[in-house]
C-alpha cells in the first residue's frame, strides 16, 4: 500500500465505510445540548439590531442617529461611515452589508444599534431618522434588461444595444426604439458555452421544440436564522462565534472589510442549522464586529425570519428560452439556449453555472448556451444548492419531455440514447471521465415505481440532472491520544453528518473502531485555511485530506515500531490497526497495536500526529435521474405527489443514511420550488411574503416517502471513489414534477411555481380549446 501517493489507489473492500453508525454529534442534537448560532452568549453582551430600508430603491439623503444615541441603554449606533472603505475589500459585499448612499432593495441595511437589551434596541431603531428619495425600481429580469429600466449602478456596466441581444431576437421578439442608455445597463455579464454548429445541426432535425420558461426566486429556507456574537477588545483582538458554512471565509472577509489583520480575528463556527449555500457569505457578521468595536462590549446579532427573507440570499429568478432538435429515433442533433438570471442588486447570479449545467447530461455535437447576469432591486442572491442548475434543467428537461412525448419514445429511453458517458465532450468544455448517468437511468427504469400503473388524473415525470462538485483548499490534522484513540480536527463545517463520514474514513484507513475517532470542527486559529462547506465538496475534500493525514500518521507510527524493533522503517507495514514486520526478512516481531504505540509515544520521540493540506482537485461529477408520480385535482388545480424516486451516483456512499438524506432533502426542496415557493413582490418593489406562513416550504403532509437508489460508479479522483452528493438532488425535481403534471393533465407548465390557480387556469384553457 503506498502511504502517500498523489494518484489515489482506489480501495474497493471496506469494513467501516458503508456502515451506518450513530453520528458523533447526534446525542447533543436530540437532547437540545448542541449549540447553534443563537445559542452562544458572551458575558456582558449587548443586543444588536439592524435598521433596513423600507424601499426597493431610494437615495439616502441623510441619516440622523442623534436621538437614538441619546437613548439610555444605547451603547453604539453605526452607519456606513463607521465602516470606511478599505483598500482591496470586496466593494459589493461592503455595500451589501450597509448601504452607502443608495438603498438598492427592500431590506437593505442602513444603520445598526447595540443596546443593553432588545427592547431598548428596538426603540433606538425607531429613533433613527432616514431621509429617503424614492427612485424607480425594477425586480423582473426581463424588464431590468430593457433600455427603459432604471439603472441600478449608473456608469458601471457598459451600455448595450438591446436589439442586438440574443434575448431580444429569440425571446421577446420586440424591437425597442430606445436601445441604449447613457448610464449603462443592468447587464453585468454575458457567458457563452458550446461547440459545433447549431444552425447546421437543426437542419438535420426531424423535430424541433422550443419554448420560453420562467422560474421565481426561492429561498434556501434554512430553519436557523443568521446569528453571531462579536467581541472586539480595545487592543484590536477579536472573537466571533457564528453559524456559517465558511468560518475561514468569514474571518478573511470581515478582516478585509474592517481593516484588521487576519490574525486578530478568531472565528469559531457554531453548529449550523442549515445553509444550502445561503451561509456562504457575510451579512450581520461585520456589522456585529463594527458595533462591538464602537461599543467596547460583546454584541449579539440574531436575524428575524423576516430579515432572513428580505435581505439574505434567495437564489435567482430566471427567464429562459430553450430549443432542441432531434431525429425520429430520438437522437438529439442540436441544442440552443438563452438564460437570463437576475442576481439581485449586485453582479454574480449563478447564470454561468446554470449555462454550464443546462445540457451537461447529454452527448451533443452541436450546442450553444448564452447566459446573461442581470442586476435588479432585489437582495443579493446567494448560492442555493447546485446554484443555477435547477432552473436551466427545468427548461431543458421540459423540452426533452415534450420531444419524447411527440416522438412516442419512453422518457428514460430517450435520455439513455443521448446520455453523457465516459469520453463525452461536455457542453461546457471538459471531457467526462467515468460518470454514472447511464447507470442512474437504468436503475430508474428497473425500479418498481416505474412500473406502477397510473390512475385517472395521474401522471409520471422523468428528469435527469448534473452537478460538477467542487474540491478546493482543505487542511486536516489528526492527533493520537495517549490511549490510542484519536482526535480529528476538520476545517469544514458539518452541515449534514460529515463528522460521522470522516470518522468512518479515518477508522477504515487505520483499521480501528469508528468510536475510537472523535471529529471536531476547529476554529480558524487552530487549523490552516479551509474553503467553505459548499459545492458538495466536504466528504470528497475533507475525506481525501483525512485519509492522507491518517496515512501520514501511519507512516510515523510505523517509524516508531521500527525504532522499538530496531529495524528499518520500510521494513514495517500497517495492517488492521497495528504495525507489523513487512515480511519474513524483517524479523519475527509481534505486531504493535495502535494502543501500544500510543502508550510508548513519549519514550519513542514524543506526540504522534498526522497532517495533510491540499488544494484538492479530482472531484467527480454526480448525475441523477428522478421519477415522480402526481395526481392533479381537476376541480381545484391542487396537486399531490404520490411517489418520488431519486437515483443518484454517489461514487461511494461513506455513510449511506446521510447520502439518502441528501437525496431526499434535495428532492423535497425541489418539490417546494415547483409547487409553492416564490418571492412575491408588490408594485412598490417590497417583498410581500417575508415569513414561513406566506412563503410556504413543503411540510410533512405535502410529500410522500422519498425512495432512493444509491448508484456507485467510483470517482478515480478519491482513494475510496467518493463523489459529492449534496447538490445534484435539487436539479431534476422542477422538471420532473412539471413533466408528471403534463402527463396527468396534458398541460405543459413553463412558469414556476405551479400553484393551484395556475394549474387550474391551464386545465380550463385546454378544456376551452377542445370545446
Amino acid at each position, binding site marked *: 500500500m503506498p502511504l502517500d501517493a498523489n494518484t489515489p489507489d482506489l480501495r474497493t473492500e471496506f469494513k467501516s465505510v458503508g456502515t*451506518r453508525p*450513530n*453520528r458523533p*454529534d*447526534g*446525542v447533543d*442534537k*436530540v*437532547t*437540545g*445540548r*448542541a*449549540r*447553534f448560532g*443563537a*445559542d452562544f452568549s458572551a458575558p456582558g453582551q449587548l443586543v444588536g439590531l439592524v435598521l433596513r430600508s423600507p424601499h426597493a430603491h431610494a437615495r439616502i439623503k441623510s441619516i440622523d442617529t442623534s436621538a437614538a444615541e441619546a437613548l439610555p441603554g444605547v451603547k453604539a449606533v453605526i452607519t456606513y461611515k463607521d465602516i470606511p472603505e478599505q483598500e482591496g475589500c470586496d466593494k459589493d459585499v461592503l455595500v451589501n452589508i450597509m448601504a452607502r448612499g443608495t438603498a438598492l432593495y427592500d431590506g437593505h441595511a442602513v444603520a445598526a444599534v447595540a443596546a443593553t437589551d432588545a*427592547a431598548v434596541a428596538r426603540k433606538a431603531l425607531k429613533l433613527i431618522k432616514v431621509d429617503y428619495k424614492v427612485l424607480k425600481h425594477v425586480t423582473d429580469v426581463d424588464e431590468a434588461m430593457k433600455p427603459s429600466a432604471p439603472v441600478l449602478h449608473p456608469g458601471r456596466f457598459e451600455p448595450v444595444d438591446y436589439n442586438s441581444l440574443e434575448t431580444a431576437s429569440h425571446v421577446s421578439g420586440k424591437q425597442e426604439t430606445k436601445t441604449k442608455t447613457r448610464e449603462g445597463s443592468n447587464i453585468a455579464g454575458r457567458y457563452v458555452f458550446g461547440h459545433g454548429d447549431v444552425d447546421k445541426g437543426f437542419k438535420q432535425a426531424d423535430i424541433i421544440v422550443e419554448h420560453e420558461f420562467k422560474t421565481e426566486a426561492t429561498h*434556501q*429556507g*434554512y*430553519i*436557523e*436564522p443568521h446569528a453571531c456574537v462579536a467581541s472586539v477588545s480595545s487592543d484590536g483582538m477579536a472573537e466571533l462565534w457564528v453559524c456559517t458554512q465558511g468560518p475561514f471565509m468569514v474571518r478573511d472577509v470581515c478582516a478585509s472589510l474592517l481593516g484588521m489583520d487576519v490574525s486578530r480575528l478568531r472565528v469559531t463556527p457554531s*453548529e*449550523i*442549522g*442549515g*445553509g*444550502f449555500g445561503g451561509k456562504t457569505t457575510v451579512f450581520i457578521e461585520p456589522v456585529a464586529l463594527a458595533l462591538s468595536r464602537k461599543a467596547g462590549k460583546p454584541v449579539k446579532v*440574531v436575524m*428575524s*425570519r423576516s430579515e432572513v427573507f428580505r435581505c439574505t440570499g434567495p437564489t435567482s429568478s430566471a427567464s429562459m428560452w430553450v430549443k432542441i432538435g432531434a431525429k425520429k429515433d430520438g437522437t438529439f442533433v442540436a441544442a440552443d439556449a438563452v438564460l437570463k438570471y437576475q442576481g439581485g442588486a449586485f453582479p454574480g447570479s449563478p447564470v454561468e453555472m446554470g449555462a454550464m449545467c443546462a445540457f451537461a447530461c447529454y452527448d451533443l455535437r452541436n450546442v450553444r448556451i448564452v447566459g446573461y447576469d442581470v442586476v435588479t432591486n432585489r437582495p443579493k442572491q446567494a448560492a442555493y444548492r447546485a446554484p443555477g442548475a435547477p432552473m436551466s434543467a427545468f427548461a431543458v428537461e421540459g423540452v426533452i419531455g415534450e420531444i419524447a412525448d411527440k416522438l412516442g419514445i419512453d422518457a428514460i429511453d430517450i435520455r439513455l440514447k443521448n446520455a453523457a458517458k465516459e469520453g463525452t465532450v461536455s457542453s461546457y468544455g471538459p471531457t467526462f471521465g467515468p460518470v454514472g448517468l447511464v447507470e442512474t437511468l437504468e436503475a430508474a427504469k428497473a425500479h418498481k415505481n416505474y412500473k406502477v400503473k397510473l390512475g385517472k388524473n395521474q401522471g409520471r415525470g422523468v428528469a435527469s440532472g448534473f452537478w460538477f462538485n467542487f474540491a478546493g483548499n482543505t487542511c486536516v490534522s489528526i492527533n493520537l491520544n495517549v490511549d490510542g484513540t484519536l482526535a480529528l480536527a476538520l476545517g469544514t463545517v458539518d*452541515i*449534514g*453528518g460529515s463528522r460521522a463520514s470522516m470518522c468512518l474514513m479515518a477508522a477504515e484507513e487505520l483499521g480501528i473502531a469508528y468510536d475510537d475517532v472523535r471529529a471536531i470542527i476547529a476554529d480558524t486559529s487552530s487549523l490552516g485555511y479551509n474553503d467553505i462547506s459548499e459545492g458538495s465538496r466536504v466528504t470528497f475534500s475533507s475525506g481525501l485530506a483525512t485519509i492522507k493525514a491518517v496515512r501520514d500518521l501511519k507512516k510515523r507510527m510505523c517509524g516508531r515500531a521500527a525504532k522499538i524493533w530496531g529495524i528499518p522503517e520500510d521494513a514495517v507495514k500497517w495492517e488492521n490497526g497495528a504495525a507489523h514486520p513487512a515480511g519474513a526478512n524483517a524479523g519475527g516481531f509481534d505486531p504493535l497495536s495502535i494502543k501500544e504505540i500510543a502508550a510508548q509515544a513519549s519514550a519513542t520521540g514524543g506526540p504522534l500526529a498526522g497532517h495533510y493540506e491540499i488544494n484538492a482537485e479530482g472531484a467527480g461529477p454526480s448525475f441523477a435521474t428522478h421519477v415522480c408520480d402526481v395526481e392533479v385535482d381537476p376541480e381545484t388545480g391542487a396537486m399531490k405527489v404520490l411517489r418520488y424516486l431519486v437515483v443518484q451516483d454517489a461514487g461511494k456512499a461513506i*455513510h449511506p*443514511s*446521510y447520502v*439518502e*438524506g441528501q437525496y*431526499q*432533502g*434535495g*428532492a*423535497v*426542496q425541489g418539490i417546494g420550488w415547483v409547487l409553492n415557493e416564490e418571492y412575491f413582490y408588490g408594485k412598490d418593489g417590497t417583498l410581500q411574503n417575508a*415569513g*414561513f*406562513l406566506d412563503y410556504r*416550504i*413543503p*411540510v*410533512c*403532509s*405535502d*410529500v410522500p*416517502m*422519498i425512495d432512493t437508489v444509491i448508484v456507485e460508479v467510483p470517482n478515480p479522483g478519491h482513494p475510496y471513489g467518493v463523489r459529492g452528493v449534496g447538490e445534484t438532488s435539487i436539479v431534476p425535481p422542477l422538471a420532473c414534477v412539471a413533466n408528471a403534471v403534463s402527463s396527468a393533465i396534458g398541460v405543459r407548465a413553463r412558469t414556476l411555481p405551479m400553484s393551484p390557480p395556475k394549474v387550474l387556469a391551464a386545465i380550463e384553457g385546454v378544456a376551452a380549446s377542445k370545446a
Partner: protein
Amino acid sequence: MSAVHVSTKINGDDVEFVCRPDESLLDVLRDRLGMTGSKEGCGTGDCGSCSVTLDGRLVCSCLVMGAEVGGHEIGTIEGMAQGDKLHPLQQKFLEGAALQCGICTPGFLIAARALLERNMDPTETEVRYWLAGNLCRCTGYDKIVRAVMDTAKDMRKAAAKSSAKKPAAKKSPAKKTAKKGARHAA
C-alpha cells in the same frame, strides 16, 4: 414596563423567574433560563422549532407569553431524556439518521412525543399531519416519519410485553401508556 415575577414548573422542577410582559415563553427559556434547546426559527408560530408542552398540550413557545405560564407545567427538550437514558424517540431519531443539521430536531421530538402520548398506533398520514406544524428543510421528512413510526411500533411491543407480564391489569396497555404519557412509557 415593569417586570413580572412568575412561579412555574419546568420538566418537573420548580422554577421562578422575572420577565417583561412583552417577552415570550421562548425568550424566557432561552435568554433568562439558559435553556437554549428550544429554537427560534420564525417567532410567528409557523416553524415549530420552539415546540414545548404546556400542561401536556403541544404549543409554540414563541406564541405563549412568559408572564402567563405561572402555575402551569412546561415540558421542554431538556427534560425528554431521563438521566443518561434517551427517550425512545430520541434514540430512534439518532439511529435512523432522522436529523441532518438538527435545528428542528428538538421541536420534532417534542411534537412527536405529544402524538405518541395520544396515539400509540398512528398511520403514516396521521404522523404527517400531526407533524405538519414543524418545518424541516434538510431531510425531506422521510426519515423523521420512519423514526416516529418505528418508535410507536417498539412502544406497542414493549406495552404488550409488560401487559403480558401483568395479566391483572384492568386497562388496556395502550390506554394506560397514553394516559401516563410516553415520557415514562419506555
